[in-house]
């Protein structure tokens, strides 16, 4: 279990996360854990009482968590979205763009590597909810964001 890398200013949630099934089954926990096979949309009716969603990456090659994150952010979830498990610095950039704002990888991340990864891309081709203006909009009069 590594340290938590966090890109939020607010207080982190202290309680352990519960499974989606537990949560839907009348749990009061503000923290839910999504496995790759879970449907993030099951949480959409309950977003206002969730403060932390933990998304598990048992293997970094299983990319379902990226869609789970975007689905939640597109639905307006503004709480903490944490990627845990087999997370390498090489995935940090894409994970951030999909809406993750904290990371708890199996192996600790080198802070210099993280810095390099996040500053790597001057611009982006596609829009996500991260607010960065995509290149195809910058070309036609919009200004940069994020």
């Amino acid at each position, binding site marked *: 279990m590594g340290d938590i890398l966090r890109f939020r200013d607010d207080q982190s949630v202290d309680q352990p996360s519960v499974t989606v099934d537990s949560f839907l089954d009348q749990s009061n926990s503000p923290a839910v854990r999504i496995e790759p096979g879970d449907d993030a949309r099951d949480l959409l009716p309950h977003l206002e009482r969730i403060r932390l969603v933990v998304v598990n990456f048992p293997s970094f090659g299983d990319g*379902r968590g990226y869609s789970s994150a975007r689905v939640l952010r*597109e639905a307006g979830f503004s709480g903490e979205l944490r990627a845990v498990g087999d997370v390498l610095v090489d*995935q940090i950039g894409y994970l951030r763009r999909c809406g993750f704002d904290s990371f708890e990888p199996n192996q600790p991340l080198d802070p210099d590597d993280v810095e390099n990864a996040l500053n790597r891309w*001057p*611009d982006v081709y596609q*829009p996500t909810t991260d607010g960065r203006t995509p*290149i195809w*909009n910058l*070309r036609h009069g919009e200004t940069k964001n994020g």
Partner: protein
Amino acid sequence: MYQYDHYDQAMVDARVEEFRDQCKRRIEGKLTEDQFKPLRLMNGLYLQLHAYMLRVAIPYGTLSGRQMSALGDIADKFDRKYGHFTTRQNIQYNWIKLEDAGDILAALAKVEMHAIQTSGNCIRNVSSDHFAGAAADEVVDPRPYAELLRQWSSFHPEFSYLPRKFKFAVIASETDRAAMRLHDIGINIVRNDAGDLGAAFYVGGGMGRTPMVAPLIRDFVPLDQLITYAESCLRVYNRYGRRDNKYKARIKILVHELGAAEYTRQVEAEFAHLLEQGIEPPIAELERIRTYFSSPAFDLDASDTIEQSDPDFLTWAERNTHPHKQPGYVSAVISLKPVGGIPGDATADQIRLMATLGETYSFDELRVTHTQNIVMPHVRKSDLYTLWQKLDAAGLATANFDQIGDIIACPGLDYCSLANARSIPVAQRISERFAANGKGDALGELKLKISGCINACGHHHAGHMGILGVDKKGVENYQLSIGGSEAEDTSLGKITGPGFSEEGIVDAVENAADVYLAQRQDGERFLDTYRRIGMKPFKEALYG
């Protein structure tokens, strides 16, 4: 053709630095091979039988003389003086050193090229019609849409760890010259009754272990919703594609198991949601990209006649040119299939010659076909004879386009760590056999495709005749199939029966060709005769 602006260049340059850093961390031991492998694959770098192999992207098969020349220089400087053009319009170098990979990507970036996402479980090179912008039958040039999809799919943060690889093809004609329905997503740009352009989406095609023809998912997506619809298709796949079994992980399995109707329903639901997110590029972007694909400055008075004095030239001109929408012009096919040669291979000198010829005779534009040849899209008929003489001197004028000598073959066990059998020697023996027996002309259009393993990189399922190499107790063995088609009459070949040895398969191909010659009726191609008479006469000829 498309040219990078500073945004595109900055992205490619950043990618070079990212990969240099990843190679460094691998060599220093900060990354294990398991961690590094998906990262190097997303930069086109494989570990093959003899060395690392680099697959360079040639977006929708289009490149300039300067780019083609750079590919020749890379072959000289970093490889062993040749390159291999592939069945997805890319080029591969077989003898790459890991420690050179960063420098090679930097050399590519200088000429607006890259190896981004040419491997890995992500969206690959978008392929298209090698006669785009020249063919008379196209509704519109399909390549602006391919370029838009290229940008959308590059470094896509949600779709870089898909269940498996993902391949797009884009065409804009009824005639399918890009095997469109044998792709994960095939798009045909069409006009509706009101005359508006839109995209027909075919999802769930592919070859490999379980070949399938893609069903039509949506017959008309308006152009200003193209990206949103593509994103919807991909998100359903990323969420629900199988991840338990590598051989059942392509989208074709998902579409097949859900059924096209249910897959469509899920896509349409995601589409309705994503439309509200406003992720589509402004239509001005498509218009901006289109300006790079306007017709070159054709000579409106170009002569419509060609040199008549040389019979060898006339044979080549008849076989290896394709009609052009502009009077006085043709598209010319440079064959990379000399008799007994290695299909798709070209020396560094040949590559640089093709670059120069493209600059001089084809408005500085060349194409790579998915059948491993090179096209010069816009050649004046009055230049054709001079062009042919120069190609002929360099061994690039074999007059066999779409004939049995125009063999498609994967690298096979001579190069590829996935292969079960060698494919190139079989291609060479068959090429030599039909040059010797002189039957190539009589056979006419006959598309022979050879794969060295079930992954079907040689597209054998889509061959009029297809050959699959297998491992039979440590000995190479070859199965013959008949009746595949990659065109708009898409079909998958059927196996004839037990496999053959390397000598046996050459005889088998000739025996099958003889059945056609004996049984054909007026105007029938090999494929047509097979479809009329069925497998039985072929089985009798092959197995007695």
